[in-house]
């Protein structure tokens, strides 16, 4: 046999992957630099299909990168910048050591910087790609913007994050693209629909952070560095898509209103700019002055293969969306000072409502508490002294629930000091067979236009009556069963006496066995299925069993939740009854 001997692991998947250490050596980078590069360029390890083959026969745990990715990194201009920066730091240290202050100045003036624009473009070739990946960027920026200006990261980064986040919020307000909000124990979730892409982010509650020690802030800072660049470009593009100025400017008319009336300047314009922006109460300046005639109704182009029903459904959906966008239109809100101002102002403005707060709380308040035109006042105290007639005093959950329900919910459940109804997640869409909390069912009914409240109350009363009746019936049943037992005993005695008289053999009358057709059929079918399962191939059987197990687990969980709810409801009902009796007595 001729030819060279074929060596193992020189072809195939083994050559497509490279371990992290070898990649690092190939790039001649230290581990922190390699990490930075991977984060910025979005390079991540890949899990090979056959790990042992790639690992050259060893089963040791290793992370593998695609060789192509690493080769791609070789030509990255930022790698050189990293090296330059390293040299710069070394020179600077030397100059400091020799106390050559002029050299220090000169070096600092020529500090190497780098830009991430090309990386953003390369990672997200189209704008929609960038929007799709915006979730983490937003969450990170919102987190960083709440950091204290002490030591954990650069102050500039924090300020930049704050600015970008506020710009994004202002865009959402201007485009009215917020869809869902959720108060979780972790923070507040928001979901907006930006150019057809759902974008979800979470903001922490506004408290000081208890900075953990086991978190590497350098990693987070590197991510933030990239995310701020991305978010800046996205904001720019988004603002321009709405004909808004970028960097945003507050509308001239609103700006005048915002100026304090006493004539005392609050701060310099450049300083208070961000604060005014984050007040979220003013509209933004446009490149072209808005004219209402601009809002031309969209022409409808029938899509081929679409039936009239589908068209109708689409139109209905669009109408619902428009209605949702104008949920708070015409309402005037006032936020008490104990209520989180920023999220509520953001949400109310997103749905067309007007909002204000106490002047001392934040810049940008437009009207006072005493303003008679206020329709809703958001309050988070057990009781309100000095209520003004003509406005609702509501807890903040009303705003969130109304947004999620896409309609202004009845206010009675949300008065101050009232036990609030549960706050449900708008991100859950129950499939068939899943557990649906009763509150959600109620809400769905309300969205359909029914009014379930009255019915349920009536039912409750009826149920109570039923319960009483049932109890009575049970007692009766007990009586009956006792009677039956007596009858049986009598019969047995009779039989005994009879058997003594008659022969020991006797013929008992046969019982007519009723055959349930349906049940028989069902049984037969289930047996057929069982037999067929026996004939399945091993792999398919494994898969089948797994799927069935998953289904069963789901059902089990749903049942568990339902049982828990039932137990809770009965407990509550009994308590109610008790208290009622106590009141009567």
């Amino acid at each position, binding site marked *: 046999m001729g030819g060279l001997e074929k060596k193992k692991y020189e072809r195939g998947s083994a050559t497509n992957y490279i371990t992290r250490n070898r990649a690092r050596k190939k790039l001649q980078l230290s581990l922190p630099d390699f990490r930075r590069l991977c984060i910025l360029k979005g390079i991540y*390890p890949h899990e090979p299909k056959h790990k042992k083959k790639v690992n050259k026969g060893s089963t040791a745990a290793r992370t593998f990168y695609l060789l192509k990715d690493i080769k791609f990194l070789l030509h990255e201009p930022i790698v050189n910048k990293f090296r330059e920066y390293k040299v710069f730091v070394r020179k600077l240290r030397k100059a400091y050591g020799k106390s050559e202050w002029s050299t220090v100045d000169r070096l600092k003036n020529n500090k190497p910087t780098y830009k991430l624009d090309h990386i953003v473009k390369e990672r997200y070739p*189209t704008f929609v790609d960038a929007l799709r990946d915006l979730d983490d960027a937003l969450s990170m920026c919102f987190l960083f913007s709440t950091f204290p200006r002490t030591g954990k990261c650069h102050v500039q980064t924090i300020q930049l994050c704050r600015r970008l986040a506020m710009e994004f919020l202002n865009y959402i307000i201007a485009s009215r693209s917020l869809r869902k909000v959720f108060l979780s*124990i972790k*923070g507040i979730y928001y979901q907006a629909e930006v150019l057809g892409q759902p974008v979800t982010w979470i903001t922490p509650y506004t408290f000081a952070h208890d900075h953990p020690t086991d978190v590497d802030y350098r990693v987070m800072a590197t991510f933030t560095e990239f995310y701020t660049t991305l978010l800046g470009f996205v904001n720019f593009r988004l603002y321009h898509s709405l004909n808004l100025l970028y960097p945003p400017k507050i509308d001239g008319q609103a700006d005048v209103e915002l100026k304090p009336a006493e004539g005392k300047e609050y701060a310099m314009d450049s300083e208070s700019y961000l604060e005014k922006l984050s007040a979220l109460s003013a509209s933004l300046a446009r490149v072209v002055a808005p004219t209402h005639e601009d809002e031309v109704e969209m022409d409808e182009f029938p899509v081929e293969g679409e039936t009239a029903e589908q068209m109708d459904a689409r139109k209905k959906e669009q109408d619902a969306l428009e209605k949702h966008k104008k949920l708070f239109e015409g309402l005037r809100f006032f936020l008490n000072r104990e209520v989180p101002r920023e999220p509520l102002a953001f949400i109310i403005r997103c749905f067309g409502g007007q909002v204000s707060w106490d002047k001392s709380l934040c810049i940008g308040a437009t009207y006072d508490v005493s303003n008679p035109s206020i329709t809703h006042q958001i309050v988070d105290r057990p009781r309100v002294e000095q209520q003004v007639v003509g406005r609702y005093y509501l807890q903040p959950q009303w705003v969130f629930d109304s947004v999620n329900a896409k309609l202004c919910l009845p206010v009675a459940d949300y008065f101050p000091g009232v036990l609030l109804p549960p706050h449900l997640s708008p991100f859950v869409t129950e499939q068939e067979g899943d557990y649906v909390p009763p509150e959600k069912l109620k809400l769905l009914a309300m969205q359909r236009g029914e009014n379930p409240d009255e019915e349920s109350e009536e039912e409750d009363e009826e149920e109570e009556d039923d319960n009483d009746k049932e109890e009575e019936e049970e007692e009766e049943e007990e009586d009956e069963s006792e009677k039956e037992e007596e009858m049986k005993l009598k019969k047995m005695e009779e039989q005994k006496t009879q058997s003594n008289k008659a022969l020991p053999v006797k013929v008992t009358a046969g019982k007519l066995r009723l055959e349930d057709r349906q049940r028989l059929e069902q049984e037969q079918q289930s047996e057929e299925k069982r037999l067929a399962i026996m004939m399945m191939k091993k792999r398919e059987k494994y898969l089948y069993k797994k799927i069935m197990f998953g289904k069963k687990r789901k059902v089990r969980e749903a049942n568990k939740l339902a049982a828990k709810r039932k137990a809770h409801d009965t407990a509550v009902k009994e308590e109610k009854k008790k208290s009622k009796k106590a009141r009567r007595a």
Partner: protein
Amino acid sequence: PCPALTPLPSAPLQDIRNTVGNIPMEWYQDFPHIGYNLEGKRIYKPIRNKDELDMFLEKMENPDYWRTVQDKMTGADIKLTDEQVDLVHRLQKGQFGDVHFNPYEPAVDFFTHEVMIHPVTNRPADKRSFIPSLIEKEKVSKLVHAIKMGWIKPRKPKDDTPTYYDLWAHEDPNSILGRHKMHVPAPKMKLPGHEESYNPPPEYLLSEEEKLAWEQQEPAERKLNFVPQQYRCLRAVPAYSRFIHERFERCLDLYLCPRQRKMRVNVDPEDLIPKLPKPRDLQPFPTTQALVYRGHTSLVRCLSISPSGQWLVSGSDDCTVRFWEVCTARCMKTLPVGGVVKSVAWNPNPTICLVAICVEQSVLLVNPCLGDKLLYGATDQLLESYVAPEEERVQPVQWVMATMEEHSKGVRLVIQHSKAVKQVTWHGKGDYFASVVSDNSNMQVLIHQTSKRWSQNPFRKSKGLVQCVLFHPIRPYFFVATQRYVRVYNLLKQELTKKLMTNCKWVSSMAIHPGGDNIICGSYDSKLAWFDLDLSTRPYQLLRACGVTLGGTPGRLEGGSQSPALTCLLHHSDLLQNPLLVPVKVLKGHVLTLDLGVLDVLFHPTQPWVFSSGADGTVRLYT
């Protein structure tokens, strides 16, 4: 009375002067005096015999008490004057001690800032101020050299491009790099469910034991990474302590976690179930238990049926063999054999009425004397027509005629082996039969000829522990099942034709289709291997049944038996279609005794009936 004199009544009496100088006064602490006067007499300290009450009264009564201080040098009390009090006040305020000192006097410059015509000093200028500095020259030349060599770069012009601009102005969706094809986008964070709400429905809150279980679980194993909690109002919601952690973990996931594209199996589980023909279309097959044959007192190990299908023979651990009439379930005959019956086999030749029974070390050939008298008479004649050959041949076994007593019971011949016999099986013609001996040598399988009373050992070498043997119904083939393999021998050519791999751990039984094309092997590890002899030596199909043994083949049906119950497997061999094994019915009836259920299964030769024998000492017929 003069208030000034009252606090110091003894003052004028004593000479109060400090004669000791500036020494630490502790030295005189324990003495009544401080120093000495010119006469060398002690100068006594003023007497201090006031108790706290006196002190208090003095404090109350003496208006100058606040300005009285004790002089440590002499031990005397001194009343401060107004000037002295003023000084103390000023010092306490941080002012200068001197009342007249003005700290804010206008400053007078030594040199005026205005340019004067006269020099300040009269000193002539230095020479070095006229000639260029050598040190500076050196420095400049160094800089020049550095600039020339490119070591010092001129300050870069400020980059005036805006930080943010329309990056996607010229976006081209076709310019997506090839790398993006391999790109696995990171999955998005899971969206929160109802349980994460600050005010969830009560059913989502954890009960006490669930909370305990949650705490004991590993953090990686937990289904929820938080404990659901309920707050009465938004004001009461605290900060989430793990917020930064979670963000950080997400970051780690994004750049450290290996990604792999996984195809999600999205199948309807109903589609996975193979489409089998409906059992109803495959009738007839036994569905109900029709008769129970009671009589045996211990487990019934083996069954066999006469070729006419009228009689059934069963062997049991209670050392008897019973003959039954199939249709009436009557026990026609009971034959005590004095040992556990391992195997029974009815001669398949319809003209011969003979049953082979394995009892310990011997095989009994029994004429049951049932049915047609002519028939069993002919069988007796056939056996008696044997003429012993002239020369005695060496045989591995002994053929012994039954004694008179045994003869009356029906036993005709006894073939005594050297070891215990575990199976016996007839050839289709009814003349030859084979027996399996539990042994390790090459003497495991023996083939006997009834008419010539002649036995032989077909194998020279042992190929493993033989489990069972079988004759081909039509052709001269002989199947020997060892633990893992089934060997097929050609009896005419006396050679091995095939070796079938069963893929089982331990073959327990084997059955062949009357057509002779298909073989089924059952094993102790609950597998069922089905071979098509025309095809490969590997199983055509391997089934996992919960069964242990297997038996019976007549008709279209083949049977498999299970421990607790009984399954029928339909062998659907259509010429146009590939043969298919279809489970048709689970037959239940036997009671589990000694962890054993069904021990043997048998098909009726002409009817679609199945017999089964079990450990509960019964034989059951399903029709």
